[in-house]
């Protein structure tokens, strides 16, 4: 039988199967962070249970950590308690943690791949919906709730039912100046935020194969924004080259064997999917969201949509509510919208390639006068180091950006980096939900290059119109 990549990953992890199709699925890697793990550890303690396999877990605090003046510690006592609790739990149960002062600390979805803790063929879970990111490696990775975090800690397994499969094929050469972020926003715009509900999405096609691992992670990261718990990309040389030599990757004694098995991690030609969506990369333009859901997205050369043109009443009301929240008039050209804050970072766009793309636009320019704050937050300590070696920090600082320490930061504003009510932000993160970046804050999702372009011009602009200096 011809199998999809999803079928292969699923089948190789089934421990047992019930008559109704419910499976016990083995989990190779669990990533932990401070927000969704305390109650799981507490549950374990209350039941007198121990972690099943300590070495399968890796922990890092990321959501609450400060991105400035870290040496002073966390000022908010509630945040501090949560980070301290992760420390204590990891110590008590013997789980490896990259603490706040560790140079390897960073956003959980950035450090997993960076360390080689994310490997092709694995099943990977984390109490975080953007676990989908790791699917870029041909791994079955999805977000779980805290009860399931506890379940995996205690049993190394999850109770799961197989989902349907969708293939999103992006063919053709992506126009220069466009990025993986534009691809995935366009996909979400096409299928909607619930379009992938109940599916695992495999991203394929020449435009996906042409992406770097960083770009592939950006695409899979936002599979959840299309409703899919997991996104997948087939393993190829790009994948294998990225993994090689990383601290947790297989060493010389197993390398050849691992590579041979990873090379099988692609859908068989002619394998059937429950749904197929095709997108032509050549037609794409830079994407900007205008509303409060990632599906509310248009291109930089469009206008804010008019609810009066929407026939579905629930959708129309949703659009009106979004416009009101966003403080936007229908039919305003997107390029007339002026953000006051720019945020470059997050597990979607906080990797080295993203830093480079933003720096290329910032180089030799200044942040516009109407921009109150432009933040660059690298996804991990190692990304930060690498960027500094390349001199990117100097470019940002010279242009008037703030160069911060790694963490989730203004992606969800659990630390001190947050929007004030009414503030408008060009953000490279993944969610433009109401209040996501701070109560009353208004988020426009864009690529790093587009965010940097908005920072230096003071309004949204097609980054291709800016010469690279």
């Amino acid at each position, binding site marked *: 039988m011809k199998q999809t990549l999803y079928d292969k990953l699923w089948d190789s992890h089934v421990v047992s199967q019930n008559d109704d199709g419910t499976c016990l699925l083995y989990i190779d890697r669990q990533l932990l962070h401070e927000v969704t793990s*305390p109650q799981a550890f507490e549950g374990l303690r209350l039941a007198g249970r121990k972690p099943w396999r300590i070495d399968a877990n890796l922990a890092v605090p990321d959501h609450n950590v400060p991105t400035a003046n870290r040496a002073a510690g966390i000022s908010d006592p509630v945040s501090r308690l949560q980070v301290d609790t992760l420390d204590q739990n990891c110590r008590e149960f013997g789980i490896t943690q990259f603490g706040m002062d560790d140079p390897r600390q960073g956003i959980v979805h950035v450090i997993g791949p960076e360390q080689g803790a994310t490997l092709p063929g694995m099943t990977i879970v984390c109490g975080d919906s953007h676990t989908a990111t790791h699917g870029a490696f041909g791994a079955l990775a999805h977000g779980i709730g805290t009860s399931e975090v506890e379940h995996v800690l205690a049993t190394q397994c999850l109770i799961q039912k197989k989902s349907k499969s969708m293939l999103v094929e992006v063919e053709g050469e992506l126009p220069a100046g466009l990025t993986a972020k534009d691809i995935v926003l366009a996909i979400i715009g096409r299928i909607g935020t619930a379009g992938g509900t109940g599916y695992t999405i495999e991203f394929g096609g020449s435009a996906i194969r042409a992406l770097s691992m960083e770009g592939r992670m950006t695409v899979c990261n936002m599979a959840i924004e299309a409703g899919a718990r997991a996104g997948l990309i087939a393993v190829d040389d790009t994948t294998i080259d990225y993994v090689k030599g990383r601290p947790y990757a297989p060493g010389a004694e197993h390398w050849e064997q691992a590579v041979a098995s990873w090379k099988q991690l692609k859908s068989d030609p002619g394998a059937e999917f429950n749904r197929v969506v095709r997108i032509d990369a050549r037609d794409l333009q830079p994407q900007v969201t205008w509303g409060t859901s990632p599906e509310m997205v248009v291109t930089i050369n469009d206008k804010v949509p008019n609810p009066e043109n929407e026939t579905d009443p629930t959708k129309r009301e949703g659009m009106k509510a979004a416009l009101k929240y966003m403080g936007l008039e229908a039919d305003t050209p997107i390029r007339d919208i002026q953000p006051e804050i720019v945020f470059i970072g997050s597990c979607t766009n906080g990797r080295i390639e993203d830093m480079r793309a933003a720096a290329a636009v910032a180089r030799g320019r200044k942040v516009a006068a109407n921009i109150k704050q432009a933040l660059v937050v690298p996804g991990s300590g190692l990304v930060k180091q690498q960027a500094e070696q390349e001199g990117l920090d100097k470019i940002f600082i010279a242009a008037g950006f703030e160069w911060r320490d790694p963490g989730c930061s203004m992606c969800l504003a659990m630390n001190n980096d947050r929007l004030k009510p009414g503030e408008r932000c060009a953000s490279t993160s993944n969610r433009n939900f109401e209040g996501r970046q701070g109560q009353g804050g208004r988020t426009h999702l864009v690529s790093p290059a587009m965010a940097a372009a908005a920072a230096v011009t003071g309004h949204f602009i097609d980054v291709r119109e800016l010469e690279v200096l």
Partner: protein
Amino acid sequence: MDKFTTLTGLAAPLDRANIDTDAIIPKQFLKSIKRTGFGPYLFDEWRYLDHGEPEMDCTNRPRNPDFVLNQQRYQGAQVLLARDNFGCGSSREHAPWALLDFGIRVIIAPSFADIFFNNCFKNGILPIILPADQVDALFTAVSATPGYELTVDLEQQTISAADGTSYTFDVDPFRKHCLLNGLDDIGLTLEKVEQIKAYEELKKKETPWLFRG
């Protein structure tokens, strides 16, 4: 986990699609290391006019009069009517914890986001998917009739009301079994210890690089 068998409770309508878990429980409350006490902060940004912070006493906070769950007629609701894609976004289990703490045991919508849907079952909340026209009819009935109650029978898989409304719903047999009996998933899985160990032995040979410990 509390069992769920049957429930008769007041229904409240939340007429908006794509309600995300950030809206259900805003991030500042995720700093808690407990599972309980989230109820007062459910839908915090919609429910109150001021900005909520963890451990705040909510008794005297200014309420948003326009938010439906603040209306007198919906106080004590146990059944929540919602629209498409309820619970999308973040995987935070704090969302079902907050709903449960607030008193919600049943959520009825035309569709749910996957992770949220799953998290509900782990906490004794029953999420029910009904066709959009039936959900529409329930919205109309609830809005038109103060005190409108629904009876949900999990064993029979039925929803009914005094006005003669009666629908059936689907539920995954395994999840139904766990909910009816209040079963702990971990306990069930640990009955399969031998199978898990056998699987690991096999994989240590096939994919030794995945076992470093």
